[in-house]
């Protein structure tokens, strides 16, 4: 499947990271990350499990704090930001969790309404219903509106998780392992959905994955995270056109070779 061409504005960065370091006790996960995400771009961060990919986007969304380095998101320095500013910034960032993180005590409708009601003061019931219908339609799951998360399949949960982030019209989307644990057909559907979201909502995205099919289908640019740093960056073909023994096995063991 060819990736739809959404315009990328290389003069406009939405995320700029310089010298980012993060350790957990004596385990140094990120060891000097430099990164620019451009407006309208889908950036895929590839790497093995435990290399700090999820840590990176959790720092970007303010869930974790960096030990060192500057992180500028939509013009705001995450390290020097008040709680209120962070809360406002987070509304502009969508975060799709690896396990979807749907609120399991609420129906799909309530899951979608939850962030909307709390962030759009004075919004009418009609507007809420319209918005919920719109995002459910965008992910193709309008029929699940009154179901509980436990009644949904893995792929449906991922889609609802994405719909929940879209309801606030985010400018940046952060996807944490969007295809993890899904069958190949559903993986392709999720990859297509990621591209559709980029086109329709004009988002810039960071997609964390170790699934090369996902990387190839969704990524405008690939960044390979090795030893706590981005060792290779470029298009899919550029990144894997190498004899680097740390990169080659990643490609060789994947079915798309």
């Amino acid at each position, binding site marked *: 499947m060819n990736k739809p061409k959404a315009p990328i504005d290389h003069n406009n960065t939405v995320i700029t990271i310089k010298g980012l370091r993060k350790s957990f006790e004596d385990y140094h996960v990120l060891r000097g990350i430099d990164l620019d995400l451009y407006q309208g771009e889908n950036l895929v961060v590839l790497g093995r499990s435990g290399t700090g990919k999820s840590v990176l986007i959790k720092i970007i969304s303010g869930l974790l704090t960096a030990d060192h380095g500057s992180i500028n998101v939509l013009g705001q320095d995450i390290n020097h930001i008040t709680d209120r500013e962070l809360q406002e910034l987070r509304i502009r960032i969508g975060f799709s969790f690896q396990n979807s993180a749907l609120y399991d005590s609420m129906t799909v409708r309530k899951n979608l309404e939850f962030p909307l009601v*709390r962030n759009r003061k004075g919004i009418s019931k009609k507007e809420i219903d319209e918005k919920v219908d719109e995002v459910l339609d965008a992910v193709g799951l309008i029929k699940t509106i009154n179901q509980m998360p436990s009644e949904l399949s893995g792929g449906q949960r991922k889609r609802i998780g994405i719909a929940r982030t879209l309801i606030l019209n985010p400018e940046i989307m952060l996807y944490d392992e969007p295809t993890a644990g899904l069958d190949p057909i559903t993986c392709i559907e999720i990859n297509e959905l990621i591209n559709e979201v980029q086109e329709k909502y004009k988002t810039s995205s960071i997609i964390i994955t170790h699934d090369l099919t996902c990387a190839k289908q969704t990524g405008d640019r690939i960044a390979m995270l090795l030893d706590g740093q981005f060792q290779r960056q470029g298009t899919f073909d550029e990144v894997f056109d190498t004899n680097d023994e740390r990169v080659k096995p990643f490609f060789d063991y994947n079915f798309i070779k």
Partner: protein
Amino acid sequence: MDTANSTTLQTEKKAKKPGWLSKFLVSLYNINKFIIRFFKEAFVPPFEFKEIVRQCYETGVRSFTLISLTGFIVGLIFTKQSRPSLGQFGATSWLPSLVSIAIMRALAPLVTALIAAGKVGSSIGAELGSMRVTEQIDAMEVSGTKPFKFLVCTRVLATTLTIPILATYTGLVAMLGGYINVAVNEGTSFNTFVQEFFDPLTFTDFVSSLIKSIVFGFTIGIVGAYQGYFSTKGTEGVGKAANGAVVTAMFLIFIEEITIVQITSWFR
């Protein structure tokens, strides 16, 4: 790895593992921070009224049957066990007074709190712990909402409001248990029993019981919420959170009971 990185890594000192004392002090600091955060967020709009009412209902319903049964049995057994001792002095007519003082001053709030710690505290710990390990709390945070207010403040307020009501109910059910025993053995009428039951109680007794119940309710809520909210290590962590919520809350309830009784005795 390049030279610059190697040099940096060599200079990064290994973090020293903290001992039990520093762990304890850090926990104490974190709990205090958690409580202060509760007071900062709970009474500032917007309020989650619907969720508070839902949590009050959950707290009440979860404990209602067990509290009814326990309260009744406590009243019945306490009266039965006290009879022989009072009988030796020919003072069985004092049974209603004795039962009322024991139940209203101590047993009703304490028994209610211990049951609620087991039923409600563990449930709050497990529920929030599960939400933490499945990243539901993180999901609330990144969507610009305030999970602390929605999850913690509502539950703590619910237990703080509901436990005094449940304790009052326990007291009344225990009174009923005591009455049945007295009525069967002494043939005392209900009106006489009620009059003798409430006669020895003072305003201080009611106030101290109310304060105790409020403090116990707050403790159950805050401990359960703290254990669950900072739960780690997957499903194992959820179990630990639920267990920790019960054990810690019960331990604190006993300490608070002793402290409040001591303080109240100065006012008598």
